């Protein structure tokens, strides 16, 4: 990592744990980043208050996932199950942290899941969570917590999904010449691994935009030693761009939080691509 790239900004990484496959992928990616950035790892497990309230209701019955039978659960039973999940999440965090030799903290909190995660993450410089969690439907897009943290959070957020690597593979950065996109690029370079490569997408439709980009950040990219490819592509059609992303197998998509790109387009893009996404929000 070149000295010109400042990584001190990310000193702690929070990861939301709920024992789902997405959460497992998030933990792995967060640990990898933490090891690279020498940051602390904070594991957050939320006991869903809604569930506990639900268990107190007299007619509460759980529909079992693989048998479709129903079963009554009392609040004590549910609390025991949640404690078990919390213990599993804590052990998972410990094992991973020991593997990567990380400082780590585990917090089990109770409340509304998105709210608790958002508030707990305020202590961290970055939050990592799964694209979708344990939501009932298997919908393709973002889960409720992910959506809230990604678009409404105050900190940098990375959304993970199982089966792909985050920072150790190829990276894609959207660069529109703004300060935000420069931050995104710097973060991408900071978290890149030895096997990483960089796709720098110049989104400004101006014909000289790529040249400007090379002029502005060429030295920075070059000093990082990462293999970089420049692509000039105006981001007007998010579906087309999603296809393009799939075609070049871009890996982690790194975005600035204040790009000169309409938010609707970005929302559609993030919903549609099936890759990890990192939203960089500088302090």
């Amino acid at each position, binding site marked *: 990592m070149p000295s010109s790239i400042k990584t001190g900004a990310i000193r702690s990484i929070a990861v939301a744990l709920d024992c789902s496959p997405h959460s497992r992928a998030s933990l792995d990616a967060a640990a990898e980043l933490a090891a690279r950035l020498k940051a602390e790892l904070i594991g957050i497990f939320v006991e869903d208050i809604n569930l506990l309230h639900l268990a107190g209701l007299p007619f509460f019955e759980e529909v079992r996932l693989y048998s479709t039978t129903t079963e009554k659960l009392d609040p004590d039973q549910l609390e025991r199950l949640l404690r078990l999940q919390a213990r599993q999440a804590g052990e998972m965090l410990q094992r991973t942290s020991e593997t990567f030799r990380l400082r780590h903290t585990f917090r089990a909190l109770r409340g509304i899941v998105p709210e608790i995660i958002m508030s707990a993450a305020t202590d961290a410089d970055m939050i990592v969570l799964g694209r979708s969690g344990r939501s*009932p439907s298997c919908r393709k897009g973002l889960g409720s917590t992910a959506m809230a943290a990604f678009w409404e959070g105050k900190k940098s957020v990375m959304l993970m999904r199982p089966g792909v690597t985050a920072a150790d593979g190829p990276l894609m950065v959207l660069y529109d010449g703004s300060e935000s996109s420069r931050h995104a690029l710097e973060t991408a370079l900071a978290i890149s691994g030895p096997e990483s490569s960089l796709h720098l997408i110049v989104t400004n439709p101006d014909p000289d935009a790529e040249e400007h980009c090379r002029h502005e950040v060429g030295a920075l990219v070059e000093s990082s030693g990462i293999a970089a490819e420049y692509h000039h592509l105006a981001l007007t059609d998010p579906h087309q761009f999603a296809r393009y992303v799939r075609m070049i197998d871009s890996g982690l998509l790194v975005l600035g939080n204040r790009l000169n790109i309409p938010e609707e387009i970005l929302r559609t893009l993030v919903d549609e691509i099936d890759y990890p996404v990192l939203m960089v929000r500088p302090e």
Partner: protein
Amino acid sequence: MQAPEKLAASQLFIRCDPGEFDFKTTADLDGTTEIAGQQRALDAIRLGMSIRHDGFNLFALGPSGTGKQSTVLQFLSTLTPEAPCPDDWCYVYNFEKTRTPKALRLPPGKACMLSNDLDHLVDTLFNVMPAAFSSEEYQSREKEIRESFQEKQASAIDKLELDAKQHDVSLIRTPGGFAFAPTLKGKVIESDDYMRLKKEKRDTIEMEIERLRDSLQSIMAQIPKWNRETLEKLNALNRDVSGFTIKPLFAEIRTKYRDLGDVVRHLDAIENDIVENFEQFLDQEPSDDEPPRTHTFRKPMNRSRFFIRYRVNVMIDNSRMNGAPVIIEDKPGCQNLIGDIEHTSQLGTLVTDFTLIKPGALHRANGGYLILDARRLLLEPFAWEALKKALRTRQVSIESLAQLYSLVSTISIEPEPIPLDVKVILLGERRLYYMLSTYDPDFNELFKVAADFEDEMDRNHETHLAYARLIGSMAVREKLCHFDREAVARVIEQGSRLTGDATKLTTNLQSICDLVHEANHRASGSGRDIVTAEDIQAVLDAQLYRASRMQERLREAIMRGTILIDTDSEKIGQINGLSVYSLGDRSFGLPCRITARARLGEGEVIDIEREVDMGGPIHSKGVMILSGFLGARYAADEPLSLSATLVFEQSYSGVEGDSASSAELYALLSAIAAIPIRQWLAVTGSVNQYGEVQAIGGVNEKIEGYFDLCSQRGLTGRHGVLIPASNVSNLMLRNDIVKAVESGLFAIYPVSHIDQGIELLTGIPAGEAGPDGAWPPGTVNRRVVERLKAMAEKQKSYEVDAKEKPKKRR
């Protein structure tokens, strides 16, 4: 009866005249050789090889070294190039019955081609298959199917969630499934708040939740079905993609083998199997230190073992074969004959598959000829039975002996039998042939042709020339020195000597070849490129010297007087017999002292050797015959009042054979008549009840043994040997003996009757009986009769005295 004349020197050794040959050296010959003297065997071989019916296999019988194998090979070399080249055979995986590998028959050279084609195909699939499955088309189709499932699932649940939301109910994920909860402003109502609701309201909520729960249950009941349908669609897609990918590759390979129905069917089976197991070609096996990766497809099983099923085990490759194969199996063990199924150890367990099937000699010889040594075959456990079974059933079934006899218990395979069309040629001694023929009921069914090889052949110009050709061909083939014609003649003389018959030549070509090699070694060691008669003689002398240790020790014992052999004086009741000692493949002759003592008795001739069980049955028979002769000739009308003993002096190892019976008779006559025998003469020959002297074996060795002793003591001109007249044709004596005879220092007398022999041995005529049966006075026979008569009278007087003595007492 007139005593015979001594033999002329020319009768002692029938020379081979080098002048009968047109060539100067064997280099002048064309270097080819032909089988001589084995016409009977050749006819049998020709018959055996030409009849293709069951059981017409061949047993070539005869002593070792008679060229059975060479003859058979030489005959086959003329036959096999014109025969059709047999097909290739290979074993392949049986996709229907995995424990029964299939045997495939292909034209010569095609088995290896098929093996290479399939190996190449599998290698290609490792590139082609991942490319097909990582193509954008496949990925998008796969994604579409998966997303369709997810969408169907999400849509149903979204719809339910929306429905719930409209009734202020929320669908929540619980640790073990799903649940519905009434909400207020997006939050689940706490139980206290809920209980404060009016009963009607609570009933409505609960009814609503129950309805929603039923809906959720029916949706979730559908999910396994949707999942199954999705998997089926994915499988169909995978089959389509893999099938489409491999189709052109198989079309290409199938074209090459379109005329071979079995091969095409096997290719079809492989194609189907690859389509079913396409995922095996998609991923490399993870290394031990690599963590397991998530994979879209089933995890590939042990790769190296899995892909074995697409391989071809080429059992027989006849791509380089011209004509029919001729296989000589030097170690005809059961597994070497019918093949074997090997095993490998995998995690401590023995496993096998069709690639571990090993061919046997029967596979290699299929469509041709298999030559086996009968003795070795019979010594190998189970081999003979296995061979018979293969010939009887006309197919080779590979069976693991260990499995058959439950020596190991592990998973094995049962390869399909391979049809067998082979001529088996067994080489063995006559004794083996006769034993098998007598005791094995299958043998005569399976080996209907016997090629009986001669031990010897007539000696004539053609056979002389055959020897010359043999030497010439060896010189060419083995790059030896050529032989001049004198050397060839000397080899022929030795060939005759080996038969012990001057009119025959040995067919034990091995000993002739050994002689040729030794002579070549001597000549080339002396820097010459032509082998001469001197080389041959030197080699023979050296052979004799190497083998003469025992002979010299015994002769030394005679010279020192440890063994008493008199070759100078005349003795009563003592004679020099001649015996042959056999040591392995060598034999030599030596004189032995035979003595006879006679006294008054009751007509018995006691063979001391027999009394102490040191005489063989033939020897005992000889003694009994001479007793018969004695009684009939000299005591026909009155009792034979004689008790005689006969013994081989200083014999400690037993005596067998009747070749000394004439000598024993001479000694006995000498003892009875008290006439001394000339010890400078030695005797050999058997006798019959009429006093006729009969042929014996080893005459040359016997004469040479006695000559060597006399020669060492100093030849005086009196020394000589009496041999049966019928053995004269067997004489092939050493050159020094011939010269000694020529110069009158040694003599050989052909004797046909006892009367001739006794006259030579005593110097007194035997005499011929007159019309009244009386022998002339002064003859040996007269003296024998007189002595026997005197003994009979004395015996009679003893008997009278014995009768009178009791009366006098009274």
